[in-house]
């Protein structure tokens, strides 16, 4: 994969979650990430993709290589036009969940990646942008 190509995976069902994380792992492998790092990236993708299915029903995940000031890595974005998140600080807390869930998805995903950014607007949707650098 070169720096221009972007892989977009539409997320509608839990089969799509699996497809997205497999794509993520493959792209991470092609970019030279170690197998341990590939597992972290695939797990992060799985978490944000599941949130799309769970809370927004549908959305998409984009995965691409990127370079920035001499650093290289993988950029993953999860986007949906779902209900949005009212309190982002709360949503980022370990154990906070509005569903019958562990509430580790967002804070845990942040721990898996090097950079993590989430924006959300009520009624408009949610976007998670995350990066992992290749050392």
């Amino acid at each position, binding site marked *: 994969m070169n720096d221009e190509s972007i892989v977009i995976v539409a997320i509608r069902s839990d089969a799509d979650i699996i497809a997205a994380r497999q794509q993520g792992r493959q792209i991470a492998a092609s970019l030279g990430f170690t197998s341990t790092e590939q*597992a972290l990236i695939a*797990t992060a993708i799985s978490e944000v993709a599941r949130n799309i299915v769970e809370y927004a029903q549908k959305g998409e995940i984009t995965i691409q290589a990127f370079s920035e000031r001499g650093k290289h890595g993988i950029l993953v974005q999860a986007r949906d036009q779902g209900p949005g998140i009212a309190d982002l600080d709360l949503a980022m807390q370990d154990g906070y969940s509005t569903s019958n869930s562990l509430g580790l*998805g967002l804070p845990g995903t942040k721990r898996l990646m090097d950079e993590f950014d989430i924006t959300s607007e009520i009624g408009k949707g949610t976007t998670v942008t995350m990066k992992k650098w290749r050392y």
Partner: protein
Amino acid sequence: MAVPILKQHDYLIATVQSTLTDSDMMQLQNDLAERVGRFRSKGVIIDVTVLDVMDSFACRMIRTIAQVIRLRGAETVLVGIQPDVAFAMVQLGLSLDNVPTALDLEDGLALLEQRIRGRHNHER
């Protein structure tokens, strides 16, 4: 894809063959709960050797399955978590709660055997 469940003496062995969807997980839980009763099984092994991702959803499902099996009077042991998967789980902050783990099927069977013997020989 449904998970095949093998009956071996007092035990049931569920070998996860590929990444599971949510409904596969629910199916597995129902199948195991039902068969523990049908075969009067004392222990269940869930083998996740081929799983390359264990996310918070999968973790919660495994915990739930183990709790259900416990209420049906049997023990569950999870086997085959690969090193990379284990590391990702820990980084994510996941815990399997009280679900015991073993390296692989062989160790898992030994652990079940000992736990079930121990369970009968000691006060809980």
